[in-house]
């Protein structure tokens, strides 16, 4: 059995990997949903756009569900505190996601144009809202969240929903939304041609630029103006998790410490820019596959930057800093972490293999001729 400290760090990496998997896979179909009403000007074009992800959105969504399940299993206190504290934000994500399964499956079952247009906007909501809220949530994590525990480890959230919508968090929401839309546009370039291709290529160039600019602005703000968190008591990474067993202070620039301590981590934000620039160049030169890889790398960099800056914090508390949740003290038991690691090592490679097979089998451009020939069975 691996020692507890190692397991705790592995699970920090794995949760990050699942979130990245979610961003790359579910992210591209959410980006597709966001672009749907704008890149498709008539019913056939919209059906082309929807059918690029028709066979895949459901499998992709499981990245989200599994990431949630893994956080529940590996970081139960984070799952409990974040989901209940961000109650209305979480419900907004959930209710936005409601529009996707029914939107995809029901939209083209009836020919009425009003019915179809309504579901198009439903798919837009399902694609647009969740990334914005996730970005806003990350923006709040970096600033600290108003919650505390009582002695029984029952969490109390003392902020309001509207507090979450502060300027930095909204900027983080822009980063998140733009990167997902950028990524979705790159995916659509792979699978479409003609007018739709032309429009999504333009979208890729715009949203790619917005992503990098907003990310740079957020980074500047974190480095210069924001109070980060530091653990001020001795920490035993092998100890049984108890978040109340430490002291924490707030310091300006604390989120930059890991980069000074381990300079190699500078590669993470660098990847955000390098991947983004690669994707922008590829979109400009009409190389969609390279663009898709580039935006994936860029998202690795962006999500990774949030993780590295916060480490070892996961969810700092602004009102009672010692209640802050860290990778050391919000985790499951050593046995559960070991077991879940085993399950992940077995199943994650299998998932990647059969998902790749599914994409390979369904690859190629979705065309107007295809929609015409499959009028009754296509989305």
């Amino acid at each position, binding site marked *: 059995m691996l020692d507890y400290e190692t397991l705790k760090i592995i699970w920090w990496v794995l949760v990050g990997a699942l979130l990245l998997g979610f961003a790359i896979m579910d992210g591209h179909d959410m980006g597709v949903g966001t672009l749907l009403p704008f890149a498709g000007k008539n019913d056939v074009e919209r059906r082309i756009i929807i059918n690029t992800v*028709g066979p895949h959105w459901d*499998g992709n969504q499981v990245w989200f*569900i599994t990431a949630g399940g893994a956080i529940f299993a590996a970081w139960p206190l984070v799952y409990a505190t974040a989901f209940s504290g961000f109650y209305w934000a979480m419900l907004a994500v959930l209710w936005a996601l409601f529009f996707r399964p029914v939107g995809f499956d029901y939209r083209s079952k009836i020919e009425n144009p009003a019915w179809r247009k309504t579901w198009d906007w439903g798919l837009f909501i399902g694609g647009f809202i969740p990334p914005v809220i996730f970005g806003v949530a990350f923006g709040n994590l970096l600033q600290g969240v108003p919650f505390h525990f009582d002695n029984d480890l029952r969490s109390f959230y003392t902020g309001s929903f509207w507090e979450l919508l502060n300027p930095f968090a909204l900027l983080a929401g822009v980063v998140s939304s733009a990167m997902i839309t950028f990524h979705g546009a790159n995916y659509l370039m792979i699978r479409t041609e003609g007018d739709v291709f032309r429009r999504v290529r333009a979208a890729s160039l715009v949203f790619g630029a917005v992503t990098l600019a907003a990310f740079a602005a957020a980074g500047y703000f974190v480095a210069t103006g924001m109070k980060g968190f530091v653990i001020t008591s001795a920490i035993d990474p092998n100890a049984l998790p108890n978040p109340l067993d430490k002291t924490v202070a707030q310091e300006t620039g604390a989120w930059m410490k890991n980069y000074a301590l381990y300079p190699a981590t500078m590669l993470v934000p660098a990847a955000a820019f390098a991947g983004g620039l690669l994707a922008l160049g590829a979109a400009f030169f009409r190389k969609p596959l390279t663009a898709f890889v580039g935006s994936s790398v860029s998202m690795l960099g962006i999500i990774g930057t949030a993780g590295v800056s916060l480490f070892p914090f996961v969810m700092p508390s602004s009102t009672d800093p010692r209640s802050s949740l860290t990778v050391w003290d919000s985790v499951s038991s050593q046995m559960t972490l070991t077991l879940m690691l085993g399950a992940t090592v077995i199943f994650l490679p299998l998932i990647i293999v059969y998902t790749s097979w599914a994409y390979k089998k369904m690859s190629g451009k979705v065309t107007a001729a295809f929609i015409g020939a499959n009028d009754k069975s296509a989305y």
Partner: protein
Amino acid sequence: MISTELVDLSRLQFAVTALYHFLFVPLTLGMTFLLVIMEGSYLVTGQQIYKDMTRFWGKLFGINFALGVTTGLTMEFQFGTNWAYYSHYVGDIFGAPLAIEGLMAFFLESTFIGLFFFGWDRLTKGQHFMVTVLTAIGSNLSALWILIANGWMQDPVGAEFSYTTMRMELTNFWTVIFNPTAQAKFVHTVSAGYVTASVFVLGISSWYLLKGRDVEFARRSFRIAAAFGFASALSVIVLGDESGYTVSESQQTKLAAMEAMWHTEKAPASFNVIALPNEKEQKNDWELQVPYVMGVIGTRSFSKEIPGIVEIKEKNRHRIESGMLAVSAMEALRRDKNDAAAKEQFEAHKADLGFGLLLKKYTEDVTQATHEMIQQAVDSTVPRVAPMFWSFRVMVALGFMFALLLGLSLYHTIRGTFLQQRWLLRWAVLFIPMPWIAAELGWFVAEYGRQPWTIYGVLPTHLSASSLSAGSLYGSLAGFVTFYTGLLVIELYLMFKFARKGPGSLGTGRYHADAH
């Protein structure tokens, strides 16, 4: 103190969303296997009609599946949003099967379902069949892990409380997986899903037959549904009995309530076929009994006694009194983990910790609990009898009727005479909604019967809820009801529309009303 209003609203929201989710699950569980049978017939015989059957029933399946996915998301969120203390307290055990469900089952089902719908022209016949099989396996494995999680709530094996981390921690995952309660629940639940799908296909096919439409298509569908359904209906009954047996082993309060057994009888106990339970006087005002049967079903012996409600409550009173000592020792250990006297007291009483926590509903400091509070806690340990008693009986009666309907359908299928049995066809049409009613009642018995616990004997429901305001709950509950009502209307509209259209909706030109 946690407000009772908040806890009640949280329970109501969970009940509404979970029961609603389970409107879509059973059909998915069973339909995937019926699709495997239909497509398997296509693979073997090469006859186009079996492919059309797979595609048409697959279309209805898809309309249902979309809402299953939608409402399943809610379940994933809701442990965290509304049951935060529960999630913290048992996440170490309960989270694992949910995460493994995602990795092992849900990915499989969801990835291949896309290929099931869209892969007909891209895959070879054999590949497509494999995709359908993997979808079925995925959806059923998904049920397995969810029911392992639920089985652990009913019968929390393989875990121990730690006062350092203030939660339950896993001690043996294999006992969690091979928990007999979970295994019996799994087979009972998936079999009920197979019955649901069989009655669905049987009923709609019967409707075509009564109308004289698409007779060949409907005839073959009817036969498959009758055969698969009859085997499943027998399995539901046998495994339901197994489920009852595991309940008698692990949850005496649930069994006593669903059988309205107020007092311990001499073994083997008699079975109340029908009774009028009187909660106040703790007796049945009237009852119709069959001697010996309950004892034999419940204990599989002639000599073991099944405890009655009054006796169980007395036993629970002692456990609550012992639990008070466990709670106070645990609180002392939270202040100073080296307190030797507290440690000794905790070790002596830790098995009753959960019973001590029941008092938290009435007082913050359980050592100060009055006699009235203890009495209230004692009374709360057994769920109300009448709703349990009646829900269980209606479910069982429906179960036997499914077996009869499907058995007669199979009999007439074998004799080749079912087209002439119009009464049978009408019965099948009328019975389409019944499996849903039975399934919902079954969940009601299982979950209402677990009260006052979320984790039986370990964590009271009252302590499990998130610290939210009642206002938030009214808001979210209103939101869920609005969304779910709207979605149900749309789903039923599409389901009826396509069921009415029949296989003609495939647009192949081979079926009724295909001309337009």
